[in-house]
């Protein structure tokens, strides 16, 4: 909470203007709420939240390019507000939120239900450790959701200083883990670095187009130029941009099953 006013500072993100306006007009009826910004898509929402540092973000789950969960993932940890997702109808998401005690509101939004969310947020703000806990809950819900009914990832949002670059998945050449970070190589020979777990990212990629070569490497199948077999039953993969990767023993076997058979 910041400033003299003890109003709850709220940001709204929804790509449909009528829905956004409907929610805003409802929030305006609450005296203890201050709307500090509205975003028409996910990328806008990230910038807005980091600039205005609200107490609560009401994020539409379905937004073009960067959806509600994507926004949460991209936010810096120390800028993470409390979050309530807004969705018209998504059985998988609702189940994941319920299991992980993440707040969500259904469209069309009911004023009483919105009030509950505001009250709950206020309650949580009293506690010290809400940030870490909230982040963990949302991360778990997102993982559940993606495991169950999530769409394969189309773009990978990458932060670059103050801007966000959306890297289309089909332009990826390779993903190489480097400690906590992942290095993404694109067809334009650019390298992006994101903070994400390789295992989680691999699970969200189209498994027919991306193949794992070892513990720390995932490459785009379409970008493989040659596969050279190495004595001992393993392979070396050479990509179109001339990167070379040794394939682990286990992945060599999988590679043989998946790629090298007619």
């Amino acid at each position, binding site marked *: 909470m910041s400033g003299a006013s003890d109003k709850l500072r709220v940001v709204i993100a929804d*790509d*449909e*203007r*009528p*829905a956004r*306006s*409907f929610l805003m*007009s409802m929030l305006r009826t609450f005296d203890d709420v201050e709307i500090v910004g509205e975003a028409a*898509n996910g990328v806008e929402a990230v910038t807005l939240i980091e600039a205005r540092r609200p107490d609560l973000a009401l994020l539409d789950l*379905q937004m*073009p*390019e960067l959806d509600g969960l994507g926004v949460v993932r991209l936010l810096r940890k120390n800028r993470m507000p409390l979050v309530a997702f807004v969705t*018209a*109808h*998504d059985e998988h998401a609702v189940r994941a939120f319920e299991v992980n005690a993440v707040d969500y509101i*259904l*469209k*069309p*939004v009911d004023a009483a239900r919105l009030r509950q969310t505001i009250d709950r947020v206020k309650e949580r703000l009293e506690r010290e450790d809400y940030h870490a806990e909230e982040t963990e809950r949302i991360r778990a819900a997102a993982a559940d959701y993606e495991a169950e009914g999530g769409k*394969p990832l*189309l773009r990978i949002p990458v932060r670059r200083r103050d801007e966000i670059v959306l890297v*289309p998945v*089909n332009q990826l050449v390779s993903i190489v883990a480097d400690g906590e970070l992942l290095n993404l190589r694109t067809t334009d020979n650019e390298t992006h670095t994101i903070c994400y777990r390789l295992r989680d990212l691999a699970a969200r990629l*189209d498994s*027919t*187009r991306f193949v794992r070569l070892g513990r720390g490497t995932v490459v785009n199948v379409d970008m493989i130029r040659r596969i050279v077999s190495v004595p001992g039953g393993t392979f070396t993969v050479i990509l179109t941009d001339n990167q070379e990767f040794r394939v682990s023993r286990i992945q060599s076997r999988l590679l043989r099953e998946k790629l090298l058979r007619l």
Partner: protein
Amino acid sequence: MTTGTVASLINLLGFITGLVLYVLLLWMVLTSRPGSNRLTLLTGILGFAWNIGAFSGYGLFNLGFTESAPLLLAAAFSALCFLPAVVVHSALRAGEKTSRAQNLLIAGLAYAMSGVATLMHFGSAITNGAVPSQFALRGVTIGFVALLIVLLLITRGQTGRGRVLWVVAMSVFAVSALHLSNHEIGQDPWWLQLAGHHASLPLALLILYQDFRFAFADIFLKRALAFILLAGLIFGIFVFGVMPILAGNPASERSIALLLAMWAVTALVFPLLSRGAEWLIDKVVLKRVDYTQLAATLSRAIERCEIPDAILDETVRTLAPALSAQSIEWSDSELKDHLNWVQQDRRSARIAVPSMDSPRYILRIRNLSGGRRLLSDDLAMLERVALLVARRIDAVRSMQERYRHDLQEQEMRKLAAEAELRALRAQINPHFLFNALTTIGYLIQTAPERALGTLMRLSGLLRGVLRSGAEFVTIGEELDLVEAYLDIERARFEGRLRVHIDIPWELRRVRIPALVIQPLVENAIKHGISECLSGGEVRITARLQQPDESSEVAAAVLISVIDTGVGVTETALARRRARGFGLSNIEQRLQHYGSGKTPLTIRSTPGTGTTVEIRVSLQAGETVNVLASTKPS
């Protein structure tokens, strides 16, 4: 009765029987495959010549009808002397072990002996009128006995009845010839006369029985047996019944009544005897199958078959031995009319199986063995079998048809149920519905008039989608639904959604399966436009595909839904289709309504957009209307 009279009668009877048998043999040989058996033909001719010559020379002469004719008799005896030569020739032909040179030598010798005997008969007839020439007969007998021994040695180890037959025939001839050489006609007891003069009869009987069993039995044996039985009966009655009674008073009224009664009994008994004789011949001699039983067996056998091919195979398998046919085949029939159920020539027959639907089949019976022809009862049996088979084939087909129909109906019902469910759950998907309601909520606050309008559109849309029963709608009706849907989506997405509908008015009357365009439009918005920050355009177009005259492509309407959205990769598309995004349902329904194998095509480029095209065949009546109305005026 004197011995001479009895002997003459026996002779006369024997010659007539011989004549009948050899005529039968000749006829059989001539009507069977031509040129196949010249020696049998020759046997027939010689036997015939002997019998007719002896009949007119001896029989009629003995009875006092004609003058003695030495030349005629000489010819008859010459024929008789040639018979063994032909028999020997046949035996050699049938032989497997003899060489060609051996054959030629022995046959030549036999014919030479017969030739010499012939010359001697004619010589004797011309010089002193004494026929036959005793010397010639004796020579022939001795010569052929010698040949018989040689033949026996040569054909030793040969299998089959042929050899036995020819040997027996030869022996009998020998006996006959011996008898003729030693005795004067009319002096011997009747049994010796029978054995001596009619040795050619067993030969004819044997040949007929072996080669033309069925014809022989059908034409000759049955009647002969019936008459013999009748004669025996009458004889028995006369000897044991009538004679004792009439012995006392030969010309009383009682005797007349008795004779009349006998007459009536004879007439009544004959059909029975005839049937009995037929049964005996069929069962014992021919071992012919009981046709009623055959039909029953066949009917049981084909009852177990489930496909026409199996039915026909089973029929052929059962029928072939019963008809003693070497082969019965079945094939598809190209014949259009089936008035001629049975087509028959001498040794083969074709029977059409009169099933209701094509393909119809034909049974071809080839090469009936034993000179068998198809008699009226055979034909009746075949017709009955053909009907039986046809009925079973019909039953099997209708069963299959019903099964297929059931399956199709079941599938259609399933599809319809799925479509309905989809309409409730996916087509008007909850996500859309709640977003629409949110939009209406917003509009209520800002523009109540528009809120009401959108509410009405939503109601109309729901009603349209939930309307059950109507499997087909016109394109116009479907477009109304699409417009309602688009209105709501436009209120939601505002400037981000642009729509362009380009469907000619005349095409709006074309009937298409319900709910095939709306789901495509919804997909375009959901997966294309709504994923785009700046939105995009949805185009709905329809055009007529003219029927191609060279191929059999019918006239169809091609409806395209094009969006400028994010597009989709092929793998993602496959995944989407597998998860059932309505596309496969639409595709299946279009396939069922006869729009070809691939009524739905998708072209998509990531980043540029997606085009979905469906192809709906026109109904027969519609084609003309639409084509007429689209002609440039």
